[in-house]
């Protein structure tokens, strides 16, 4: 036990006021919140608001901007590169998310089987998620090299190709290449979280279904999927959110090229704001992502609500 110093006689009154304050849950609660709230207000809430404001100004790096209303958005609406980035972002998010979900769910089902070295396999599967994205993206960059791609080499050796694929030089090749890298990065997250969901399903449900003569497919369709749906909703919202706002993979592998074919809204916003110096315009592009994010967050809330409801209203 800590030794509490005797307060000096003159300070007794003041310290009793203090100690009474410290017995109040509300006061103490507020004090405990100070570090977290201070950081979050200064570096999260305030920048969020500042971002809205910047999007309505013509601020350049190193200068003070003036308010120009929705002019940035008006000029963006006529900007074909911006619309291309919106298209790319949606394309990237839709295809990567669908495959991540499908492969992730399949992998989760496989990992839920009786397996030797189960925990080791799980640990290995999660590796792409743990390793810094930029560093693994560099590996993909090298795998997609136009002259020394190992994929091209393998396909040529197998007799399926006659010349090297220009992975990152052709717009559609580049789009599919970054989607594949994103799938690689995201599958482990989906798989491990869905696996955790699978393990909360009571085996007795499956036993009962077996006794009733259900096939594997029926068990999956009528037990696994409904029981898993709340966690699927949450995981996929996170996954969509991360994919939609991705920056690292694109910046590392293509920097938005070739001819803007892989620019996402995030990378375009970086290019206009930091590389190009137009903070206001870049902020406007970031702000244009917000409606999509709000939609995803609302979905997540419905998912959470539903999971609470399925667990019998437990808080």
């Amino acid at each position: 036990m800590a030794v509490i110093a005797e307060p000096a006689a003159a300070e007794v009154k003041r310290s009793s006021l203090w100690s009474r304050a410290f017995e109040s849950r509300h006061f103490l609660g507020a004090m405990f919140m100070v570090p977290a709230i201070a950081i979050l207000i200064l570096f999260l809430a305030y920048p969020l608001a500042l971002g809205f404001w910047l999007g309505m100004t013509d601020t350049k790096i190193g200068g003070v901007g003036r308010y120009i209303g929705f002019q940035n958005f008006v000029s963006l609406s006529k900007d074909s590169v911006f619309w291309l980035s919106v298209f790319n972002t949606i394309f990237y998010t839709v295809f990567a998310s669908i495959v991540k979900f499908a492969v992730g769910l399949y992998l989760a089902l496989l990992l839920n089987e009786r397996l030797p070295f189960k925990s080791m396999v799980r640990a290995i599967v999660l590796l792409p998620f743990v390793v810094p994205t930029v560093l693994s993206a560099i590996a993909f960059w090298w795998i997609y090299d136009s002259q020394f791609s190992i994929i091209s080499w393998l396909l040529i050796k197998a007799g399926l190709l006659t010349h090297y694929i220009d992975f990152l030089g052709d717009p559609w090749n580049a789009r599919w290449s970054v989607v594949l890298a994103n799938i690689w990065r995201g599958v482990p997250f989906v798989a491990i979280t869905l696996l955790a969901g699978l393990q909360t399903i009571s085996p007795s449900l499956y036993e009962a279904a077996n006794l009733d003569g259900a096939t594997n497919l029926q068990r999956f369709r009528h037990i696994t999927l409904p029981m898993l749906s709340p966690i699927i909703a949450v995981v996929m919202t996170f996954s969509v959110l991360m994919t939609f706002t991705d920056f690292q993979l694109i910046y590392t592998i293509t920097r938005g090229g070739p001819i803007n074919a892989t620019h996402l809204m995030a990378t375009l916003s970086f290019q206009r704001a930091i590389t190009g110096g137009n903070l206001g315009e870049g902020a406007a592009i970031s702000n244009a992502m917000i409606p999509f994010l709000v939609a995803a967050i609302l979905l997540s809330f419905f998912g959470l609500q539903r999971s609470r409801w399925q667990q019998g209203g437990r808080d």
Partner: protein
Amino acid sequence: MTTVDDQSVGMDYLESFPRKFLRVYLPLGLIIVFLLFPFYWMAVTTFKPDAEMYDYEKYNPFLIAHPTLEHIKKLFFDTDYPLWMWNTVIVSVSSTFISLFASVCAAYAIERLRYKGSRYVGLAIFLGYLVPPSILFIPLAAIVFQLGLFDGNLALILTYPTFLIPFCTWLLMGYFRTIPYELEECALIDGATRLQILTKITLPLSLPGVISAGIFAFTLSWNEFIYALTFISSSENKTIPVGAITELVNGDVYHWGALMAAALTGSVPVVILYSFFVEYYVSAMTGAVKE
């Protein structure tokens, strides 16, 4: 928090090996090869001399005929890589500790003190987790510049907690919830202060949660890219991901050997840490989603 148990489903043990091989082991093996291949390729390229790296006619690209450390040597002695590594360590460790301190206090207050409005504050903090760095980096750059923090470690140490605190707080709230109230009540009756209760009862009992949060925060900060890319300009202040991308590429000349060496050695510390605490890591990840 449920631990992962090894319940297997139904009556799989009746299945014959060849059938199970086709249904489970083969697809699982293929997926694992797909997931591990980039690491293998990273490692092969790191230890391969340039002559072999660019000659697929004479050498089998999957193997290394004459392993070499020249790329690693070049990386460590001819570039600022050791400084990047040092910066990454400093930034990750500091922001992890700041975040853990702030999150423990906040989670304890929200979950245990239950002050007025704590539910709403908890919800607001959770919402903070959903604000992606790619919409914050522009205004944050302006703030960092105004505060005079531009191009220094402190810019990263202070901004990383914005995505670490929401996650850690949320995770720790879940852990604190599992500790029985009675323990705290007894201690209160015995005259312990709230601070003593936190440090002597709540924290020790939720140590796995604190470790999970710490590991997760550390790997997330080691992984961070967009803030470091935006707020840091001089080579000696960069972190590994940013340094590798911006400094190892000279115009159109890519030093693939050094790049792969940077990718490999930059990944190793987190992988080692992760492999020691993999169960904590997994439970943190799954717990956060399931909450």
